């Protein structure tokens, strides 16, 4: 029933999925944190930018963003992100698109986390002479992140599954392989089951491990 699997590089495709996920997760964590810092910061221009970014980006379908990064950025504007060759360029563009999109959600999760930190924490930090970025980096964000593990886990799981959209620009990840297998084999049920099982294998441990981490690092008040 599953003997067709021998003809395809299923593990390789999922490895690409994992790479897409990890790189995009890292990128969107950094960029999302910066956006959250802008949104709670004292500079009106940055606050405005952060708010506008989140509200625009999270309301655009991911498919549109990913297609734009390939058709718009690469084919029209010639952006290749330093890569050579169709596959490498599209992989990087897919990571870029996923970061752009996911960071809006990361930003909001972290901003919610920041709001769980009592205002007195920031006041005490300011009172001993820490500047804005120190207050945020040393006192508020470390506590906010701990409250953010659960919502960020959701974002990470969503991101893992969202990497399938990269199939739209022919990145050789799991969903593209699924499409190829469905075209070649008359095994729709088992193919879907294999791919679904693969994703569960990726996301279920993510949820369990991060759930445990979240409990472990929670700030006691």
């Amino acid at each position: 029933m599953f003997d067709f699997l021998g003809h395809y590089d299923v593990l390789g495709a999922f490895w690409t999925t994992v790479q897409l996920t990890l790189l995009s997760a890292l990128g969107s964590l950094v960029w999302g944190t910066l956006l959250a810092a802008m949104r709670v910061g004292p500079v009106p221009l940055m606050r405005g930018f952060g708010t506008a970014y989140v509200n625009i980006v999270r309301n655009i379908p991911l498919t549109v963003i990913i297609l734009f990064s390939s058709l718009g950025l690469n084919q029209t504007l010639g952006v290749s992100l330093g890569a050579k060759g169709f596959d490498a360029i599209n992989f990087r563009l897919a990571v870029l698109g996923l970061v752009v999109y996911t960071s809006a959600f990361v930003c909001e999760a972290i901003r919610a986390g920041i709001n769980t930190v009592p205002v007195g924490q920031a006041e005490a930090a300011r009172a001993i002479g820490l500047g804005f970025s120190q207050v945020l980096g040393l006192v508020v964000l470390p506590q906010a992140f701990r409250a953010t593990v659960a919502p960020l886990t959701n974002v990470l799981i969503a991101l893992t599954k969202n990497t399938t959209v990269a199939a739209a620009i022919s990145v050789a990840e799991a969903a593209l392989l699924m499409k190829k297998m469905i075209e070649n084999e008359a095994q729709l049920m088992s193919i879907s089951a294999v791919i679904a099982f693969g994703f569960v294998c990726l996301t279920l441990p993510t949820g369990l491990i991060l759930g445990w981490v979240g409990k472990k690092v929670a700030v006691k008040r």
Partner: protein
Amino acid sequence: MTEVSVAKEDRAASDELVVLKSVNKHFGALHVLQDIDLTIDRGEVVVVIGPSGSGKSTLCRTINRLETIDSGTITIDGRPLPHEGRELARLRADVGMVFQSFNLFAHKTVLENVMLGQIKVRRADKKAAEEKARALLDRVGVGTQADKYPAQLSGGQQQRVAIARALAMNPKVMLFDEPTSALDPEMINEVLDVMRQLASEGMTMIVVTHEMGFARSAANRVVFMADGRIVEQAAPEQFFNNPRSDRAKDFLSKILHH
């Protein structure tokens, strides 16, 4: 460099450490601080008392600009309070603050709480910061709790750690914003004792409190506020025995018969 130190000495010659001149502040339509003039000398312990909502906490918080003011001037050691940024942060490091709700950094141990400002603001090296932190914690009587997290300590212990954290910055003046109001009665004295000791060592202190006993025993001057104004200020003996204003008489009659 030499110019700076000369200027510092000049300022040190003056006895006035904190000066508020015609300070006004509104919260929306509420005029919480009305033409406040107040001068605190070096080494002086000033206790601010008054009914709830009289603006005494707000007054305390304007001195390190946790609350902004609408008009007037505040100078600390001859320098006007900067508006924002690095200058303001530097000034805040010289003004210790103790809050009603302690506000110890919840994700750091007691020791780390007292070291953080020394390392990140004063640029002290880690070893020196730890030594000083342990000494200060011993001084306020919580040396054995150094490696615990704030949530594992009692309120009184947390507040004493908060005092140590403020002292670690070598502040010129300490602000206490109702430091014992969130404490169980049995823990109030352990905090007041530390404050009394500080006062006797010559620390300049501005204390917003409801503890009349502390005002009597440790204050050089009592400032009585009501409805956003300073109604009366006097030495504690005089204030408690012979208040001049009706507002102060009324206030004292309500609280002093026990």
